[in-house]
């Protein structure tokens, strides 16, 4: 069994071994610590010259990495908590994402900014957020979210070695400890990888009748959604299919549309706060695409900061029961 953490860590080792252009940059990333979530473990021992521990300067390090990327390196920046991305917002939105286009495509910026997002650990309002919603739809920025499905390390490897435009790579903290789930290993589910550079996954319960609704999710919420789909089938005899995204922005909606054309019912599930979140775009685009027969809802965090206290945090963030409730409402 490989955990998501191990998969990402191994992938970074592979990337650095494969190309000496790859640099790893972040706060407290040196061994033996290897970064706050240990994703960098072993890197500085294996590649001492190419792992740079930095001052606590999120804007500065993203900007510096952008400069490195322009000049031929392939830097990976680790932002210790995704909550701190706000500090690098200008460098991401007004610099990294614009430089290629502004230069009439002569400058390329193969920059990867990796960061853990998400709650569930009682870290409180400034260390638990899923702030990717504020970066979605930034022209020139690709946003990718790791999942436990398939091969998160391979996803990261593609981003690091093959991309030539800036990527924000989101990793939910609660994924790290989960086992990686190869597509053929997921009990009771038939999983298809829809052909695309950044895969979209289609999950359906084995031998189920026609699904009544479609769920869309990414990252850790895809895990919760999958469990909800299972319980819906067994406890409520409501059958749903699921689309899991890895590329959030820009996105390939075709697999979702395929499914929704059949089900006419769509639920998006995300951990960020509801309003103006990821699901809004998914609903809007689906509506524009398939027209006036769609029924849809979104499930997300309550529109408030995330409390440290367990019972409060549990109430604020979406959970399996809430997904099931939303599905039942939608299916009825």
């Amino acid at each position, binding site marked *: 069994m490989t955990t998501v953490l191990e998969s990402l860590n191994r992938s970074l080792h592979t990337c650095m071994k494969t190309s000496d252009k790859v640099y790893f940059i972040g706060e407290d990333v040196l061994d033996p610590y290897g970064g706050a979530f240990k994703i960098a473990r072993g890197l500085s021992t294996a590649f001492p010259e190419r792992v740079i*521990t*930095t001052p606590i300067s999120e804007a500065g390090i993203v900007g510096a990495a952008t400069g490195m990327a322009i000049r031929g390196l392939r830097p990976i920046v680790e932002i210790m908590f995704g909550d701190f991305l706000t500090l690098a917002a200008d460098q991401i939105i007004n610099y990294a994402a614009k430089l290629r286009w502004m230069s009439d495509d002569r400058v390329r910026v193969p920059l990867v900014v990796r960061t853990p997002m998400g709650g569930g650990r009682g870290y409180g309002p400034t260390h638990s957020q899923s702030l990717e919603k504020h970066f979605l739809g930034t022209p020139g920025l690709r946003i990718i979210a790791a999942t436990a499905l398939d091969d998160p390390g391979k996803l990261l490897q593609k981003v690091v070695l093959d991309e030539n435009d800036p990527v924000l790579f989101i990793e939910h903290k609660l994924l790290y400890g989960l086992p990686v789930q190869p597509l053929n290993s997921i009990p009771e589910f038939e999983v298809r990888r829809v052909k695309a550079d950044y895969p979209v996954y289609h999950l359906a319960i084995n031998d189920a009748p026609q699904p009544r609704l479609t769920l869309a999710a990414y990252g850790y919420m895809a895990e919760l959604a999958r469990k909800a789909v299972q319980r819906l089938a067994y406890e409520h005899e409501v059958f749903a299919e699921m689309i899991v995204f890895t590329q959030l922005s820009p996105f390939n909606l075709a697999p979702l549309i395929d499914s929704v054309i059949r089900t006419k019912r769509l639920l998006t599930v995300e951990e960020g706060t509801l309003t103006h979140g990821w699901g809004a775009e998914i609903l809007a685009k689906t509506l524009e695409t398939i027209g006036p027969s769609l029924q849809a809802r979104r499930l997300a965090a309550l529109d408030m900061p995330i409390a*440290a206290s367990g019972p409060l945090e549990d109430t604020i963030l979406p959970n399996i029961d809430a997904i099931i409730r939303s599905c039942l409402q939608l299916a009825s």
Partner: protein
Amino acid sequence: MKASSTEAADLYRQMLRIRRFEEAILEAFPRGLIFGTTHTYIGQEANAVGVLSQRQNEDIVISNHRCHGHFLASGGSMSALAAEMMGRSTGVCAGRGGSQHLHWDNFFSSGILGGTLPLAVGMAFAQKAQQSGQIVFAFTGDGALGEGVVYESLNMASLWTCPVLFVLENNRYAQTTPVEVNLAGGIGERFRSFGIPTDEQDTTDVAKIEACARSAVDHVRNGKGPYALIIHTYRFAPHSRGDDMRDPAEIERFRQRDPLKIQATSLKKSVLAQLDVEVRTEVEDAFNQAETASMADPASLTYPIDLIR
């Protein structure tokens, strides 16, 4: 000026309260009582206690992620702090904030490094504008000097002659990173290059820190603008929990100048013994009170602004 023995005892008592509280917090984790993580103040007690001894009633304290010591030395309730970390309804912020996000009266902390400094400057500006006589104490670590907004803040504080005392606690590490790896040039120079006068001390002697704080605060309170007190110190415990990469011998060496030990030398054995009992009891009571309080109630959650009106 030699402190009277009651004063000396009080300084010791305050440091001891912080020490015992933090130890109790670390012990409470394995018992599953605490949500999230923590950054303890063990080893740095002399800074908060020495500096905040110069705080007057309505002065403002801006703290950072390592805030328990600042909070307790500002008069914050120990049981409310324990309760906050245990996610109880009786917590300082009713369980919303947790360890690093405290607000109580004129005390503020948050978990994003550096970002508290412009707030401190703005608050100082407001107190000056309102001629309240209040000043702002703003605590920061060496690592936070990496953040650009710190320099924006120093510049504004200096340009606008704001009554703010910057207290820079250089505990020689930011998480796992030694200060030399994070910081080019010098800490004092950084402040002085913005026209902010500094006092730089390498000490854990609370009496000495108190004395330095007294003249620093005089400067600030007398309308002469910001001032920076830079204290070279050390933390004895891990950055948060279990993430200590430092050489144990180094820690041992710094433990020789444990602020509690130093201050203890100026106190009688009997006083120390009595304080020990007093503080142990206080901490036990605080934790008992916190533990028996009800968990924060989801029904208490509100939206941060009215969603529609």
